[in-house]
């Protein structure tokens, strides 16, 4: 999704003043607690954020009126370890601390944030947010109640309290395993990333919610050489996981996938160009579902009538065997959230029910516009960003066919195993994706591997053109991806079964 605010992001990201990413930080003892055993009130204990302080800041945010206001406190610690040329010889760490203050009037948003947890700085940021309104002051609630939430990513131990000595061998073994699998491997990059994000949302209507959102992954990327040619591919596994998730079996799987995916590229040919049927393999290809279909169902694009789906609620948008759900409650996946970033509990939203478009994904502003309840999709990258409706784990449920049936139905087409670098134009619905792993399908059989091509299509058309779904539903197991919208990156999950789209443009070579 390309838009103007994204360019300010690009500018910011490109500016040398912004050094982002990354290092293992050894934490003060008070932070090294078992997440499950923790009582609410982290921000009060660590930074002195009391109810009366919140009330004062919210009152300032509503000092010129407005429908509601909220505070979003964040303390995030990110660590990464990386290996190059056989050694784990670099570490990055980042600590991000701040509070974002938002005042909302109808669909207008005033936003200020500060990195200093002082009353004065917070009041300044609140008065910036207040400028969106120009009426009589409104009052925040007199007291705040803790929101009751479930925990979809319980931890036995905080990742930040896992000693470096335990993380290092994962990365080293991933490297050694890749080299052991093939003599054609010439370079390996491997690493482990973990992030611990703590948030506190306090709303002017009297809700406070705290969450601890872990995110982590292990990856390996391989360069191999054969007959003077080089190819490169990689693999990662992760999510909102406990450290115990990462075992020898995880390392073995990552290494095998990274090496296999690289070596197959030596056999790969370029696909033919033109219109043809496309079979999407299970799991990771659902990024296409996320991009090409999911984004258009985010309520802000519809409220502003920018999306092709803005007139389609209640309409048949797919075959009756197609059901699409956005689910924040799946345990340990990247898009799972106990609470969204404006204080709505994590939940599950059916978007397309047996082919009928039933719901968009709502944040509070859009929910008020449509006079419905928020679906818990209000998310943001950090305290520096305002809330947008965003996906969580977007999935297409399994269908009746077998994967074999699906492939046998194609005379000449391609089988897509993995895609990357996707982009969608919301208004037209047009999208393009890069196929990083795939095969030809000829006369109902999978044949030669293919590589380096785009597939292009139109989201709503693709949805109508799904003619078969198999029973082999899989979730993407990766932990590294993030979805970009309006200059904000948030982690999302996705999954689907093997799926036949009867026609798409394949951008290969002319034959």
């Amino acid at each position: 999704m390309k838009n103007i605010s994204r360019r300010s992001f690009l500018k910011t990201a490109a500016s040398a003043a912004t050094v982002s990413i990354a290092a293992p930080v050894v934490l003060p003892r008070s932070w090294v607690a078992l997440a499950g055993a923790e009582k609410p009130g982290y921000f009060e204990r660590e930074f002195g954020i009391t109810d009366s302080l919140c009330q004062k800041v919210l009152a300032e945010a509503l000092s010129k009126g407005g429908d509601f206001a909220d505070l979003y406190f964040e303390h995030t610690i990110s660590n990464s370890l990386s290996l190059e040329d056989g050694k784990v010889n670099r570490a990055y760490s980042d600590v991000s601390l701040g509070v974002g203050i938002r005042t909302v009037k109808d669909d207008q948003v005033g936003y200020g944030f500060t990195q200093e947890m002082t009353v004065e700085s917070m009041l300044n940021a609140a008065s910036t947010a207040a400028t969106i309104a120009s009426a009589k002051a409104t009052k925040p609630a007199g007291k705040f109640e803790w929101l009751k939430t479930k925990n979809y990513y319980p931890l036995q131990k905080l990742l930040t309290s896992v000693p470096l000595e335990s993380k290092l061998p994962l990365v080293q073994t991933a490297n050694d395993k890749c080299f052991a699998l093939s003599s054609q491997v010439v370079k390996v990059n491997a690493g482990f990333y973990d992030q611990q994000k703590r948030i506190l949302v306090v709303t002017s209507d009297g809700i406070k919610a705290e969450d601890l959102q872990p995110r982590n992954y292990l990856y390996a990327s391989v360069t191999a050489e054969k007959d003077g040619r080089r190819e490169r591919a990689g693999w990662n596994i992760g999510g909102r996981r406990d450290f115990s998730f990462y075992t020898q079996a995880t390392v073995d799987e990552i290494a095998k996938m990274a090496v296999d995916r690289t070596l197959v590229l030596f056999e790969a040919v370029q696909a033919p160009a033109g219109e043809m049927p496309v079979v999407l393999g299970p799991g990771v290809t659902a990024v296409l579902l996320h991009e090409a279909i999911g984004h258009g169902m985010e309520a802000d694009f519809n409220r502003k009538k920018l999306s092709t789906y803005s007139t389609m609620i209640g309409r048949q948008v797919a075959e009756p065997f197609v059901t699409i759900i956005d689910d924040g409650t799946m345990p340990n996946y990247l898009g799972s959230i106990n609470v969204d970033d404006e204080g709505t509990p994590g939940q599950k939203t059916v978007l397309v029910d047996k082919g009928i478009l039933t719901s968009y994904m709502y944040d509070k502003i859009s929910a008020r516009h449509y006079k419905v309840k928020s679906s818990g999709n209000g998310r943001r990258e950090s305290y520096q960003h305002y809330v947008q409706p965003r996906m969580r784990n977007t999935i297409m449920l399994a269908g009746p066919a077998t994967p074999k049936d699906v492939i046998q139905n194609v005379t000449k087409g391609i089988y897509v195993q993995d895609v990357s670098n996707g982009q969608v134009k919301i208004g037209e619905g047009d999208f393009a994706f890069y196929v990083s792993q795939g095969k030809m399908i000829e006369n109902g059989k999978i044949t030669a591997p293919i590589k380096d091509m785009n597939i292009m299509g139109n989201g709503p058309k693709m949805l109508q053109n799904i003619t078969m779904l198999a029973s082999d539903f899989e979730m993407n197991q990766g932990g590294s991806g993030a979805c970009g919208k309006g200059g904000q990156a948030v982690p999302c999950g996705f999954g689907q079964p093997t799926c036949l789209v009867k026609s798409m443009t394949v951008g290969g070579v002319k034959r």
Partner: protein
Amino acid sequence: MNKEMYDLTAWTVKTAKSAGADECRAGVGSERFVNISYRDHKPENIKEATTKQLGLEVFVNGRYSVQTTSDLRRDALKDFISNAIATTKLLAEDPYRILPDPKYYEGRAKVDLGVLDPAYNKLTPEDRHSMVKALEDSALAAGGNKVISVTAMEYDSYDELLLMSSNGFEGYRESTYFQAGAQMTIQDEGDRRPTGFDYAATAIKKNMPSPEQIGTGAAKRTLSLLGGKKLKTETLPIIIENWNVSRIVGGFLAAMNGSSIQQKRSFLADKKGQKIASKHFTIIDDPFVKGGLGSRLFDMDGFALKKRVMVDAGVLKEFFVDWYYSRKLGWEPTTGGPSNLIIPQGKRSLKEIMKDLGRGIFITGFIGGNSNSTTGDASIGITGQLFENGELVQAVAEMNIADNHLKFWNRLVEVANDPFPYSSYRMPSLVFEDVVVSGL
């Protein structure tokens, strides 16, 4: 430079050294920004804040790590620094990881880059609001009855960076940035709602075009997408519009940096001194462009920068090699990445070129796509216009081009005279021949 920033950076270097770092480099960056957008004749978002971030690289017993934080309380920083050093000691040794030889710090150019607008502080909230309103009004007026939605925005900032190392480097820069743009969505046939935009960005406000020019530009660009359709797959000349050239050049550049080369991920690794493109392809890295959005006197290694010809009439001359990868490769370093990248402009206008070519595709936008730095293979979706007899005749969507960089740049036959001024990639429109544009 403000004293607080200087003191904090110097204190960090000193504290890291006394906590056990053999060497270290610290940087503090700060940005004060305002961002306003309008939709339906009222503010949609108003955002304003100051961000600060401290970055610290430590070198301990031949080991290395980097840390960044926005928690700048001195007590928190003390813990942060000692933890950073403790962590670093646990990593594997890396003999290539040392601070640069200070000889590369020397000879910093003494030129005024013209990137700081002295009038920045005089900009008022009213100025900003009236500019965005004018932008929205002109886009709406020019868009006519097809318009579904227009969002107009401005973003301005004052940025500072101070970098200091324990072996004597000190560098400071400050700059301002102004950006304005409008995004428009219009009703096409059926459910299609094409969205387009126009924008401008400069370091000095008076170099910005008028809001009316940007608003009208956004409408013109968006209306040109009406009726976009996929055409038959065909081999044609293409023209890539100036502001999109950076996207294609980006794929080429990914193979030009030291880490790609050392990690065997570069299709250009063994091509230095060789002809890899047509004679029309020249790229210059010029850090001293007056008012350039990439202009700077030193890089993040502290190297004093120079103007360099990277590709000269199709011959690959230089790579972007930072200090660390120069040691790993055993090469002389240049600089870690581009500042302002310039493709020298040609003589003819787009109009003249199109007339001459007769029939082809004028590419005004890219979508998705990828470029593989290891093999040079690339594939990318396009939108734009089919032109015939030099006239734009049909909007094009859902089409694609695919090629290998080592072949593609040999198809470059002409460079137009219209360098894009609102980016650190100051590149004109480029003309390629015999490109397969795939569609139906």
